[in-house]
């Protein structure tokens, strides 16, 4: 319930943000305790995460209800667009850090480490490397790694498949968007569903790759700076894909309930923008982490 002030929608006081913050506090507190193997840690984490999930459900649900009630005029819509756009920009900067770390390590610090004979006699600058004191790299997709050795995931197996999956999902979400703009609800639902399935298939393949890496390739977070950059880049990307799939699923449910109009559907577009962003990051990963 709220009043229109000069047309711009000003929401009533809200309790969701405050409670979400409490959930976040419990999550951080619990995680820290858990990292130090203290008893209530996992329970606090679960409680915090549950609070966050429930509150986000309620908060976004409220926004969706308001949107369907027609409370948002064009100016509010522009605010949402700017908000989402600049949020994605901040995400770009977040991934830029890890790409930057990768480039710095490969181009500068690993060669420097090998160049100073005083530091690590006999260390040669190669990539992938687990560093002078780490495991030895024995080439990609080597399934017979011994102790003190590690392998890596070749680019043109599952990662190539993953690239195809994500790139085609960017196409299908765009086809769904065209359908929405032409008010073809059946096509919209179908292509959006296909997008969710493609995203989920990517997650499945990526999880398989991680198990392969840990169980057979000897490639772990502990595999020196190669393992560190590999897992932090693909891991945060995978997390973003997961968020994207959840978002698209929510949008799909809303589509099935008849939400969104041909000329007014920022919820859909925001999710699609995010999905394209996740897709673009993957292309960067495929080139700089897997191929090169």
């Amino acid at each position, binding site marked *: 319930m709220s009043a229109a002030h000069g047309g711009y929608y*000003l929401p009533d006081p809200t309790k969701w943000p405050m409670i979400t913050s409490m959930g976040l*506090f419990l999550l951080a507190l619990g995680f820290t305790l858990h990292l130090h193997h203290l008893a209530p840690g996992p329970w606090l984490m679960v409680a915090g995460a549950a609070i966050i999930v429930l509150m986000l459900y309620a908060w976004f649900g409220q926004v969706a209800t308001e949107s369907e009630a027609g409370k948002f005029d064009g100016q509010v819509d522009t605010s949402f667009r700017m908000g989402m756009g600049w949020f994605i920009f*901040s*995400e770009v900067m977040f991934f830029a850090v890890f790409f930057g770390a990768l480039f710095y390590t490969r181009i500068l*610090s690993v060669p420097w480490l090998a160049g100073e004979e005083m530091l690590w006699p006999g260390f040669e600058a190669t990539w992938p490397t687990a*560093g002078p004191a780490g495991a030895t790299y024995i080439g990609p997709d080597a399934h017979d790694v011994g102790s003190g050795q590690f392998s890596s995931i070749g680019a043109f197996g599952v990662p190539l498949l993953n690239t195809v999956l994500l790139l085609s999902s960017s196409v299908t979400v765009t086809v769904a968007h065209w359908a929405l703009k032409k008010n073809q609800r059946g096509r919209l639902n179908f292509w959006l569903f296909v997008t969710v399935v493609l995203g989920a298939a990517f997650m499945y393949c990526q999880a398989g790759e991680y198990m392969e890496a840990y169980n057979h390739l000897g490639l772990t977070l502990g595999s020196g700076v190669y393992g560190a950059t590999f897992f932090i880049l693909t891991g945060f990307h995978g997390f973003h894909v997961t968020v994207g799939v959840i978002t698209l699923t929510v949008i799909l449910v809303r589509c099935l309930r008849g939400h969104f109009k041909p000329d007014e559907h920022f919820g859909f577009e925001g999710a699609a923008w995010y999905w394209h962003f996740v897709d673009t990051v993957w292309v960067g990963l495929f080139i700089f982490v897997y191929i090169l």
Partner: protein
Amino acid sequence: MTTTVADHHHDEVPKGITRWLFTTNHKDIGTLYLWFSFIMFLVGGAMSLVIRAELFQPGLQVVDPHFFNQMTTVHALIMVFGAVMPGFVGFANWMIPMMIGAPDMALPRLNNWSFWLLPPAALLLVISLFVPGGGPASGWTLYPPLTIQGGMGMDFTIFTVHILGMSSILGSINIIATILNMRAPGMTLMKMPLFVWTWLITAFLLLAAIPVLAGAVTMLLTDRHFGTAFFDPAGGGDPALFQHIFWFFGHPEVYILILPAFGVISQVIPTFSRKPLFGYTSMVFASAAIAFLSFIVWAHHMYTVGMPLSGELFFMYATMLIAIPTGVKIFNWLATMWRGSLTFETPMLFAVSVVCLFTMGGLTGLMMSITPADFQYHDTYYIVAHFHYTIFAGSVLSMFAGIYYWLPKWTGHMYDETLGKWHFWLTVIGFNVTFFPQHFLGLAGMPRRIPDYALQFTEFNQISTIGSLVMGFAQLILLVVVVKAIRGGKKASAEVWENPEGLEWSLPSPPPYHTFATAPEVR
């Protein structure tokens, strides 16, 4: 739902504690930010007094060295992330909608969340001081390998940084959307008050810089607990990588602290000079230039870490370039005052002191930009003096100027001018007594972040500690002034000052709970 009853209900000011917990009103949220900032300012200030007390004499008297290191670290984290940044976001919340003729911030619920992320984050940082092993003791720069060691206090610090970062990103998104989307008809970009401009630029800096810090501390966390080797040469990593990433955030960060201050000064000086701001357009472009340069100078914080000569030279010359747009600003303020009808009420006193003292801080910065010279100054008290001349005398004194300038608008009452002047003189004299001697200490070679020192540094340290006591306790005067103005006093007119420029002065003092429900026309 759409009845007039509901409309009427919405215009009432909500009562009780839930007004503050659940508010979506930009003025309420601005007030929350400002009080949070002030509390953090007192907490962080108390920690700096612990530091100064220990340094009053050589030897160890007051605290043990580990606790001393925690104090230097947490003092800095609290002042940077808890006091100055939220303080200016408070100003932004209060003033930007009123300055551009908007009914509120663009995303009011998000605005509430941006604020209410801060107290849990501050709580985590405070908790860290009481866990086994104590709080972070690495300096606010959190350099590994020191931060790879240590107890759970460091993990609390990492999550504190994450949550504060979320708050800053959400706040910046809101500010950008408000400025770009909510301006009244006729309020073109080049008609915006300079405070709005500097905040727009600051918000972009935040969006680009804060995620970088989040990434850096995330790598610290994985190095600490998940076996990664980003910063460990044994695994092929490099601790200097952290320094590069940290300062890629850190240098924009200090401009995040100072640009809104430039904005405040650019509002205050024209009012008390009774002249329009000199060189408005050049001010806008100078702010943008400073923001751009801030992203290509980071390694001047790490000349001594071991970089190729070409890198040292690039960062030296790029850093020197910053003096040009900053100089443009200083000279524009001077030209604004030139032949103006000057009066020196408290806001103007603070503003003028900022122009003088910040210029000093800028010039010592220029000295340190010279690579070979910096090898001598690096990690000495010279950098402590430089930093406080820019961030205390630049940002914090500007905040004081802004508080006195807009307090009558916020509360509807004039503040106590006599007490304000006491606050000003005690703060500025205390500040200079505290930090001026630190230049000499640094040049003579006293290292920073050390609880003990050689005997020849004693006198300057004692002077510094005495100054810090004066400066510290003078801040309680501000509390008295603000509380007095809230509780009563001479009624302030809508204009408050003599013909000040800006839409905020067209509103009554205090402004109604909702302002500019209908957008004003700007000619």
